[in-house]
């Protein structure tokens, strides 16, 4: 079947199998930032924004996303200019291997869009579905706090 997705601002049409997961379609079409860590909805490495909300793309049938707007981390920066969440992750040393980073960054964008001034508890809750085995989360939590500050200071928002 054919579906239409607007990915990072660009409308595209894809042929997909009814059983195909959004993660597989996105990777097949070259959006390699979308990572697979489990395929069972347990790690958040495949998180993307669908119509503004963070979803695990490994669980969702591509067909269900038909007509939706998708944002992946590839669509976040403007050329060399990073989104404040990306800047904050780099500045705080919150990236080690970087495999969880795209999902973590997208879930953070979702959180800060809904809640520009989250408490530490709210950050932990919002990102509890994103597993990271490298960092121990300390610097990631700090990065989210820093990103919130940067965004308050009027850095561009999504």
């Amino acid at each position, binding site marked *: 079947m054919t579906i239409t997705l607007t990915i990072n601002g660009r409308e595209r049409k894809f042929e997909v199998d009814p059983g195909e997961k959004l993660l597989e379609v996105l990777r097949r079409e070259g959006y390699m*930032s979308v990572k697979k860590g489990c395929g*069972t909805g*347990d790690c958040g490495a495949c998180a993307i924004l669908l119509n503004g909300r963070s979803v695990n793309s490994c669980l969702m049938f591509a067909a269900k996303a038909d007509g939706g707007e998708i944002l*992946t981390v590839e669509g976040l920066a403007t050329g060399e200019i990073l989104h404040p969440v990306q800047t904050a992750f780099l500045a705080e040393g919150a990236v080690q*291997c*970087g495999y969880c980073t795209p999902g973590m960054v997208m879930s953070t964008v979702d959180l800060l869009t809904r809640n520009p001034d989250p408490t530490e508890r709210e950050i*932990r809750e919002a990102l509890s579905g*994103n597993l990271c085995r490298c960092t*121990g989360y300390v610097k990631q939590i700090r990065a989210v706090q820093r990103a919130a500050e940067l965004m308050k200071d009027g850095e561009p928002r999504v």
Partner: protein
Amino acid sequence: MSDRAKNFATVGKSLRKVDGFALVTGKPEFVADLQLPDTLHVKILGSPYAHARITSIDVTAAEAIPGVACVLTHLNTPSTRHTTAGQGYPEPSPYDSRMFEDKVRFVGDRVAAVAADSEAIAEAALKAIRVQYEELPAVLSMDEARREGAPVIHDESDSPGIYDAARNIVADVDIDVGDVKQGFTESDEIVEFTCETQYAQHTPIETHVVLSYLDSAHRLVLRTSTQVPFHVRRIVAQTLGIPMQQIRVIKPRIGGGFGTKQEVLLEDVAGWVSLQTGRPALLTLTRKEEFEASRTRHPMRVRVKLGAKRDGRLHAIEMEATSNTGAYGSHGLTVLANTGSKTLPLYNKAPNAHFYGQAVYTNLPVGGAYRGYGATQGYFPLETAMDEMAVRLGMDPIELRRINHIQLGETSPIFEKLGEGREGVSQTVKSCELPRCIDIGAERIGWTKKRGKRLKVGSWVHGVGMSIMMQGSGIPEIDMAAATLKMNEDGSFNLLMGATDLGTGSDTILAQIAAEVLGVSLTKMLVTSSDTDLTPFDVGAYASSTTYVSGMAVQRAAEQVRDQIFGVAAPMLGASANDLTLRDDAVFAASGESVSLARVCQRAMYETDQFQIGATASCVPHESPAPFLANFAEVAVNTETGKVRVVHYVAAVDCGVAINPHMAEGQMEGAIVNGIGYALTEEMILSSKGRVRNPSLFDYKILGMLDVPPMDIILVESYEPTGPMGAKSVGEIGINGPIPTIANAIYDAVGVRLTQTPFTPERVLEAIKEAAK
């Protein structure tokens, strides 16, 4: 900060990762992100039995499925024995593995592989393979392994390097210092504990994955998620029986390793598919396959007996370890040896010590390298026994450690007696801030206020515990790292290294070392790491070697390049080379006159006495300086449910000069959180038939953001005179801390000693009930 470290311009700064931009923007940097036309998808058929002989295998139906390119079994693949352990040559692990074999030794062991146009076709083909098994009696626990008449797991005659195959013993270690028996007789107080650790897994978020293809010269290229690219090249050549020069291994960005990728697990299969079909082949383990068929931490039972004089001085230490290496002996000997060699030197003043142990085969998942590498298992009983000894002697546990731990300028006979599965290398401690680590940590946790107070809040009781430890920096006289640095005429440098950044940030800290020597900013370093065609040799990322060993190679290469730069610049500045210095991208004479690095290189390349400014340097370490760590934890134990909550964790670590403090902290934070998971939640649960019952990240619980306690990581700087820029390594040590520290804090809270990990509510509750009897 140490005085010598104060003057650094680049080292000691938390600079951003050199690969950070690519990672936060989601560039296709990982193995599976490269899409090649016509790629085959490879799937592996795992054994349903823990121990069986394959009596027949029929692949005709599988091969007939449209889209199947090839089916591999033991009948059509090379049969060379090798080890999957990616260690230096000759590997201290037995050659007990084959690509495929007519015998399977654990549930998930390889039976066959299919390469097909799509994953779905490959999976369908796996189902079409007809295998007849003759099930064999299996060894399903450590205790059964050595029992008289136990099934022999490696009954083949062609596997060299097994200590006693007929008795399922992979390795045996036995070393003595003084006379431990006599030592116990002379002791006033004796404490003895036996602790057991569970099957646990590394769970990097990126599973094992390899993409293989043939290049234009028909050479085999393995783009693989590995910690050991050079060992992959060597072991795959050996396994497949092809000349090593036919293989190129490329390590792109890696999604975490923690030891599990110090294993040559998939590269032989993918490589063979490409060689047979001429097509690219992608082999990715699913999370389930990763749990069932990759590598684990060796579960161990370790007994520690301590004898001390009344004043607290340790007089005798005995440690006996039994390690379960699973179906294959990968890292069996060396992990076992490390259980003693990385722990016992800490208490060097005991004149009598004995370490002995065996690693045994079972028909269970396979052990491998895992951050901490045996030390994690050894520190659990050692630091538990120390805590108990303090109680018995009526001493503060901190005081007991203080009077017994190794100090600056001291040595331990263990260094020389026990090394990497063989004799070790003697050394004295040249940097040690452990006393300060203990002070700072005790203060931060509120030790004197909280210890022994048993604060109650509802059914929660609070307690504090501590432990100390050391590790190492690389493997002395065995590891070897090299780096190449060449200069470009705009004043930038290519830094080519075999060192393997698997997410640790080593590309960045190694570039910081080079930038420091050459007086340039980090942006002038163009880093290429780990491509066996392009970069010089390095054993890879394991044994906490990268900062110390690879770092020294980089420093030496940079120093040679600096001297060449001075040679060119001296006549330009009319000064003697000895009077020149480097800073701010320029060479300065004592007069203050300067010339830019770009100008220097232009002269060398285009003008006078032309040559390429550049150098390759190597490092073979002669010692393995230890980082030191003091851990403190406050826990709350629920006496109704048995649940343990870590309230606060403090780790004060001496890793020499931290080249990049953010990254050193990051190593500690990640290792400690992994260690807390290992202490409290993580466990591979095995069925009575040896099958992993919880092969998912849902059922195997690694900590998420909600589970992580407030942590304080304090870098207590020292200056290691043998290290690059004063640095030691810090990759592993943190993971050893949580188990004994939390166990000791639980004791402080509720007075019970936990001797089996993980400390689940059931176990804790049972121990509390037992104690109440």
